[in-house]
């Protein structure tokens, strides 16, 4: 199976791997994801009814309520946080959420992650090294 390696900047350290869940739309955590299940609940979102729990979330940016990090923390406590995440452009919401969710995170990759990675691919994230290894599903 085809493997692709991407290089970027550390947001939060540690390693995590899982199945990718990819969106080109911004993601809201507070009032956008059910903290007890990890399911996307935002009306009109392309990931609605899908769960980010235990996956590697690949998304362009965080948005919405400033209670973003608080919701991320609740998700982590409930054991429904993603294994890692790849953030297109970091803002304070996703930076703080990475810290309190204790979730390996990278940004500023050398290729556009939402183009290279498809939902269902297997993705390994090494936060400290800023490395992403993608195993394509097909």
């Amino acid at each position: 199976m085809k493997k692709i390696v991407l290089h970027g900047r550390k947001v939060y350290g540690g390693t995590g791997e899982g199945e990718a869940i990819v969106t080109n739309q911004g993601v809201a955590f507070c009032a956008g994801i059910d903290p007890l299940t990890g399911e996307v609940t935002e009306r009109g979102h392309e990931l609605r009814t899908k769960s980010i729990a235990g996956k590697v979330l690949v998304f362009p940016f965080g948005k919405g309520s400033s209670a973003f990090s608080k919701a991320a923390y609740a998700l982590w406590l409930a054991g429904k946080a993603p294994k890692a995440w790849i953030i297109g452009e970091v803002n304070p919401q996703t930076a703080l959420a990475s810290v309190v969710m204790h979730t390996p995170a990278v940004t500023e990759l050398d290729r556009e992650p939402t183009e290279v990675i498809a939902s269902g691919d297997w993705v390994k994230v090494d936060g400290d090294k800023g490395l992403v290894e993608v195993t394509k599903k097909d």
Partner: protein
Amino acid sequence: MKLAQDEQAMLDGREGLARQKAMELLIKYGDALGADKFIDVDNVYILSGLFSYADIFESVDADDVASEYFLDSRERVVVDRVKAFTTNHLFTIDLDNDHWRLVKAPQILHDLEVQTQKYCKRIGVNMTGTCTPYQTGNVPVFGEHIVWVESSAIAYANAVIGARTNIEGLESSFASALTGKTPYWGFHLNENRIGNILVEVDNDTVDLASVMEYEMLAYYVGGLIGLDIPIYTNIRKTPNADMLKGFSAAGASSGSIEMYHVVGVTPEAHTVEEATGRKKPKMTVNYGKEQRRETYEKLNAAKNDNVDIVAIGCPHYSMRQVAAVARLLEGKKVNGNTMLLIYTAKQIATVADRNGYTDVIKKAGGHLLIDSCPLNIYVPTTNVVATDAAKIAHYLPGEREFDNVWYGSMEDCIQAAITGKWKGELK
């Protein structure tokens, strides 16, 4: 992160465990952002609710909850006092007049709120209890570096006042309150405040003359752009503070607009050139009749026109809005099948009491609530809700799974409260 002497001292624990934990968190946060130093702040606005964790945390001890959730600490940390001037966001429910029972809030939320208020008092958090600190005694000045939560207030502070804050969360704002520090990053720097998306409003088909019109414009643009800064042009009439309050809230709900410019209105946009920093915008967005219609329809996905609850005042109603709603209710009666909830800040409610607005609202069968939010209603989600806030129309279906939510003007909402029927339409 490079640390100054006082920052290193806090990190080393020389000012106690709470400030040490707070510095540790802020350093991790600064690293995640890619910042390299801190700046001093003395205006912090925090999320104080212990309520959020009622589902997952058993203790109602404020120090336990704050250690775990505010400071990311498994070790119990007893906070002495905050260092910066600090005000707080709304609580979750209104404890006055048994309003919390009216919205069917569980006893646990009541108990947590009592604990939260004791905790705030003890550590020196000034309990403004509102999502609109700029209406109630926490007004920063132009250029001031501040640390604020609440997406609508952040956008208002950045865009309308010209103060400087990033979109902070519960943990970062609490840590800033304890230390008086925040990462020097993002909107604190000049170069990150200039706009990059030009929004042209079609004045022939759109008359920007009400809160609702402003909300729809921001809601449309917010849903279209990412972490960009829009520059609104062609706005002929100077909006009032209520319009800009709604404008700030709507753009931060559909999207992430935490900074914007209105040419000729907001303080960093005397001209288009100033707003763009003389750089070419990356996109131009047009907003006219079609976009307005599309936005209205998106915000009105309800089907059942029998309205159970009318929830207005998000962000918290201003004095002008409470006065206006009282005028609409003068001599009227709220329908027996409908509950009318009007949200404002305690400080504004005090003026409303004095002016007799609260009595008019009560006499009509409505309720003026403080410290709270229309998202915090604990009734079955089959209830049909009408609101004049795009933010609530956006979040009630997502966060609370209410399917039937109507959106319109204050007048539409009061009409629904009186008749029990939704008759709002796009005029």
